[in-house]
């Protein structure tokens, strides 16, 4: 089972119809397989943080079984635009 940043990137893009995805392999900083992701998707609109994170968790359910540490940031397209303007 592949566990590369690219693989995660593609899966998140596809399943969450994401506008923008960033996947960082943070494994070198930690003791075992770790990733940090940023997902921008309209699917997050109107959803509280917990629900957004659960969407991501569901998308990567298989992979998360083999990932030790996982960080995620979930933004709507509007939040992303605003953030970039800062």
């Amino acid at each position: 089972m592949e566990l590369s940043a690219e693989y995660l990137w593609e899966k998140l893009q596809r399943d969450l119809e994401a506008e923008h995805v960033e996947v960082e392999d943070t494994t070198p900083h930690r003791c075992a397989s770790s990733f940090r992701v940023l997902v921008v998707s309209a699917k997050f609109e109107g959803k509280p943080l917990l629900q957004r994170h659960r969407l991501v968790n569901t998308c990567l359910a298989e992979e998360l079984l083999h990932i030790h540490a996982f960080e995620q940031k979930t933004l709507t397209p509007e939040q992303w635009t605003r953030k970039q303007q800062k």
Partner: protein
Amino acid sequence: MSGSLGRVAAALLRWGRGAGGGGLRGPGVRAAGSGGGGSGSAEQLDALVKKDKVVVFLKGTPEQPQCGFSNAVVQILRLHGVRDYAAYNVLDDPQLRQGIKDYSNWPTIPQVYLDGEFVGGCDILLQMHQNGDLVEELKKLGIRSALLDEKKDQDSK
């Protein structure tokens, strides 16, 4: 005026450790313990998360976190002056470690529960801290965030 000062003092006394750094006692580190169904059972976990207003499951203890994310949760709670919370160390108990993940359907530790409800992990708590939601959620539990008092001090200078 004296009435509200009285209330503030009473609140500080209730938390038992004073406003500032005093108090080595800190949060109550609990052991999940044995009992019907084992420490990982849904029923037991349900009781655990409802027993205290603020409940966290950590890797390590508040005094000695064993993981950066768990430490972040501890530090955020400390910033808000939340001292009276239940902290369960999943490293002590593999059944608890897996059980709590099944219970919340959440794959990682730390896990934060407010008023018996799963709130999220470190990422979510951090964002709630940054956007002011945590102060509000604590207020709903009758917990006054220390950051409010800090701000008040700053305003009055």
